[in-house]
């Protein structure tokens, strides 16, 4: 939910500029999977700050709990046991909205102002404008938005836009006991990641790297991965995510063109009528 209502770069289903007089600094959250111990403190902090409570689930014999993102669990820890050249590895990733620079949800949304992107890069849902169509779910390349069964509105991580607006870090960042989650300007975070990656490489993780996928214009939630060459190892993190071509086809120039086409069809009918005229039964020919 918004506080920085005056710094909007993009607004769903809106064709004129949004209030964008000021340019705030682009922010990013950096999640270092190599430092994460999977304690879920961030999951708890998220629920605490945002006052969401998920239903008590079932034990599936794995650490993942709940098993998936929900309208109440905006972030979940994903645990993957994988065999790599280093033997058995336990890879843990904090999953949630990536806050894409080019957000597929916002592109797909038909309701004006239900999704906005602040000039600091945060992508936020304004549920009061949401009509519950779920187009954003189809638009998202990371499968993040969840439709509430209670109110038919969609929910997801806000990157604590309310906290960030008043100069605080997101709740998950504040709580992380190992410092695996850090927050700041996107530039600083990329710089911080460089140091981490150099360190990891020195310690034998030759493919360590930053996950900031260009296919979606970069993200405002980034990962440091030990195996940046194989992001799929981390519970299917997409290697080269981008807005699906089907969504681009659906939401691209085809739409204004289609409307133009319909308008033209109506006009063509009107001018045909005033030039050629109607088909009437001609009295004289009929009586002959």
């Amino acid at each position, binding site marked *: 939910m918004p506080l920085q209502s005056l710094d909007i770069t993009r607004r769903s289903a809106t064709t004129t500029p949004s209030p964008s007089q000021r340019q705030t600094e682009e922010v990013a959250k950096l999640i270092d999977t190599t430092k994460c111990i999977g304690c879920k403190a961030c999951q708890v902090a998220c629920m605490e700050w945002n006052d969401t409570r998920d239903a008590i689930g079932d034990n599936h014999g794995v650490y993942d709990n709940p098993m998936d993102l929900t309208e109440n669990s905006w972030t979940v820890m994903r645990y993957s046991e994988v065999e790599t050249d280093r033997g058995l590895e336990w890879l843990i990733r904090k999953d949630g909205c990536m806050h894409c620079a080019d957000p597929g949800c916002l592109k797909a949304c038909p309701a004006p102002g239900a999704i906005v992107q602040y000039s600091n890069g945060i992508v936020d849902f304004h549920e009061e404008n949401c*009509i*519950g169509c779920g187009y954003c779910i189809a638009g998202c390349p990371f499968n993040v938005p969840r439709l509430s069964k209670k109110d038919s509105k969609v929910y997801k991580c806000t990157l604590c836009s309310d906290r960030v607006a008043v100069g605080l870090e997101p709740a998950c960042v504040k709580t992380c006991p190992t410092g695996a989650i850090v927050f700041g300007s996107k530039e600083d975070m990329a710089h911080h990641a460089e140091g981490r990656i150099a360190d990891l490489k020195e310690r034998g993780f030759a493919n360590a790297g930053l996950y900031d996928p260009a296919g979606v214009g970069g993200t405002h939630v980034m990962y440091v991965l030990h195996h940046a060459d194989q992001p799929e190892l981390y519970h299917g993190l997409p290697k080269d995510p981008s807005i699906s071509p089907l969504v681009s086809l659906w939401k691209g120039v085809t739409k204004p063109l*289609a409307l133009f086409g319909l308008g033209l069809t109506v006009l063509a009918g009107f001018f045909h009528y005033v030039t050629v005229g109607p088909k009437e039964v001609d009295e004289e020919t009929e009586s002959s």
Partner: protein
Amino acid sequence: MREKLIQRYTPPERANHWVVAIAFVLLALSGLALFHPSLYWLSSLFGGGPWMRILHPFIGVVLALSFVALALRLWRFNRMSKDDEQWLCQIGDVMRNRDSKLPEAGRYNAGQKLLFYVMVACVALLLLSGIVIWRPWFAGAFPLVMVRLGAVIHALSAFVLIAGIIVHIYAAILTKGSIHAMVRGTVPQAWARKHHPAWYREMTEGSNR
């Protein structure tokens, strides 16, 4: 002299047609509101965005069912013939109202038949794709790629159908007397002889004229 009338549509046929027509208009208005931001204001006609989103698919089901009933009633009149192909080749004459040069049309002319099949295909596609993208009920059961494909197919077939119906409505305005046929059910004999000569002969054969 009082004009002789021929029955073209029975009361049940007319009622069926107008159920389809009303459902279509509601669907086109609500669908277009979702289709492009410039038309989002149409959502006010349905009590706002959420109500429009809720109602659209249910109206869609009404349309699909009533359309199937109508299509079954009219199916046998819409078979294409050799003459129909010739008619379509002379579309220029149709547009310039040189109707006497055209091959004789039966109960429906080739343009009407073609549009009939376009409508059948579009409604089938709209129903199937509409179910795939229908939240909260069905969309969750389909993989995301199918929901995306469903949305594209739905938008595309809606575009084709709306364009087709614009042509359909214009043809009704253009051909004087046809709106009366669908509202009151009858047409003058002269109308039938001019616009659907083969049908006219069929209807009047055996009877005195």
